[in-house]
């Protein structure tokens, strides 16, 4: 018996730590959440009702995100990246500026798309109504949706035609705002700061590697890429570049990023034809900035 105990003691200790973890980090209780259970979401012409999502949440979400939405579900210890703490109301994938709440549609899109390279699957099998209800339920966990409105979505100008000039200009933007500090000069996520990145909870986090064919967590359309660096991914080291990249330059950067990806694309073909070299981190910063 004693030997068994000794053998299992590290696990018992670990289990104790995990059992305590939710108690330590949950900031809100059932009593705080209850008054907000009338929360709604509005996506297109669909109205979601938090209360209607209770059963779906218990069935599909609670294992990771937890009863109180604090991300401390049963599976928490085994997940990396960790499930989102909905109580904080901080979301990576938004169409809205950094520091603001996402729109209901942003949340619904995340549900449908899933988060690549995480345990969050695609919930595209749920109906739009189910997703809208779940979005309302997700919102009811955070007091922010009572005191704040979602941010105003950023304006994305119509996508211009890809040209060699634009791809070259995109490379200059990549050099100027120093994307390579984390993402590396070739987009391999091996920049000088990549190894020390942590999320807002202090957990290690990886920069996106453009060269391995993975889908970015917040979507892989050209518009998604545009949004990612112009809004930033809140809760992560990825900042917003809205103040430092002009809308037209932003499209140039999107084209250059696509040229770094291994997928066949017009951008990649043009970059190859140009013989475009990776940016030089030791080059002096462009003058007149």
């Amino acid at each position, binding site marked *: 018996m004693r030997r068994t105990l000794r053998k299992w003691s590290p696990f018992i200790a670990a289990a104790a730590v995990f059992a305590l973890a939710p108690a330590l980090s949950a900031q809100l209780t059932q009593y705080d959440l209850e008054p907000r259970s009338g929360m709604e979401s509005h996506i297109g012409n669909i109205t979601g009702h938090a209360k209607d999502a209770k059963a779906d949440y218990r069935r599909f979400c609670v294992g990771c995100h937890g009863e109180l939405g604090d991300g401390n579900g049963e599976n928490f210890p085994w997940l990396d990246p960790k499930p989102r703490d909905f109580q*904080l109301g901080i979301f990576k994938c938004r169409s809205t500026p950094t*520091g603001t709440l996402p729109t209901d549609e942003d949340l619904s899109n995340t549900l449908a798309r899933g988060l690549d390279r995480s345990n969050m699957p695609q919930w595209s099998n749920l109906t739009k109504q189910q997703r809208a209800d779940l979005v309302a339920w997700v919102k009811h966990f955070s007091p922010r949706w009572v005191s704040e409105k979602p941010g105003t979505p950023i304006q994305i100008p119509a996508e211009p035609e890809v040209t060699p000039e634009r791809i070259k200009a995109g490379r200059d933007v990549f050099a100027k705002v*120093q994307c390579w*500090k984390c993402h590396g000069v070739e987009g391999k996520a091996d920049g000088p700061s990549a190894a020390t990145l942590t999320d807002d909870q202090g957990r290690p986090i990886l920069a996106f590697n453009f060269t391995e064919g993975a889908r970015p967590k917040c979507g892989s359309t050209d518009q998604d890429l545009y949004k990612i660096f112009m809004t930033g991914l*809140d809760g992560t080291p990825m900042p*917003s570049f809205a*103040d*430092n990249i002009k809308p037209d330059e932003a499209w140039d950067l999107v084209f250059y990023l696509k040229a770094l990806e291994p997928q066949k694309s017009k951008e990649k073909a043009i970059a190859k034809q140009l013989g475009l070299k990776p940016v030089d981190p030791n080059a002096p910063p462009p003058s007149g900035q």
Partner: protein
Amino acid sequence: MKSRYRRILSAVLSTVVLIGGGALILGQRVNAAGEGKITGSVKLNGAAPHMKGIDMSKDPYCAKAHATDPGHLETVVAGANGGLENVVLYISDGLSGSALTDVPTAVPVFDQKNCVYTPHVLAMDIGQKFKVVTSDQTAHNIHPNPNPMTGNIPWNQSQPPGAPPVEKSWKAAEVIPVQCNIHPWMHGWFVVVKGPYATTDSSGAYTINNVPPGSYTVTAWQEEYGTQTQKVTVAGGQSATADFTFKAK
């Protein structure tokens, strides 16, 4: 872990002290005569702990900027006479009316210079505008990480060379850690308080201006040693003194 409990304990104790103090002060009318001030100094008792050096070699720009003056942590900055720098002093109890609600029009500046935050600690009032600027020819991201439950919402903005200033304010009193993810050693604080405040200079001296006559609790906050409080009474147009000593550990 131990220090965390100690911090929690001291927070609980100071709350008790504050509530007790508040009950005593309540009912006293604040005289609207000439405003006074609270001055004093904050000292460190004992030898200042060793501040680790920072290896900036991963960014040649930062390393070059510190070629002759190596960077080091700024958790405890003590002068030759034991004066503690970067201590924020504010009135945690006793303020009322406009002294509490007036927001200074001055815009304090938080600079990213030679890959270090200058100042290391920036104090400000709730709702007061402040500016984040960069003097560096390397990219930074300015990433304050408040607890959203307070009403302060985290944000994260890039500041590559030549970036325009970022102007912001905070909604609630909170000690907010600030970091740059690109340069993980860059760590500073936004200390958001309600009402008049001051930050100690390199000799540990401070002056809180614009304090109406009355009895107050003054709190001194130091990032490593936590908070201390003291009672002071300010007479019209006069200067009251509150000196603090933190024990080195």
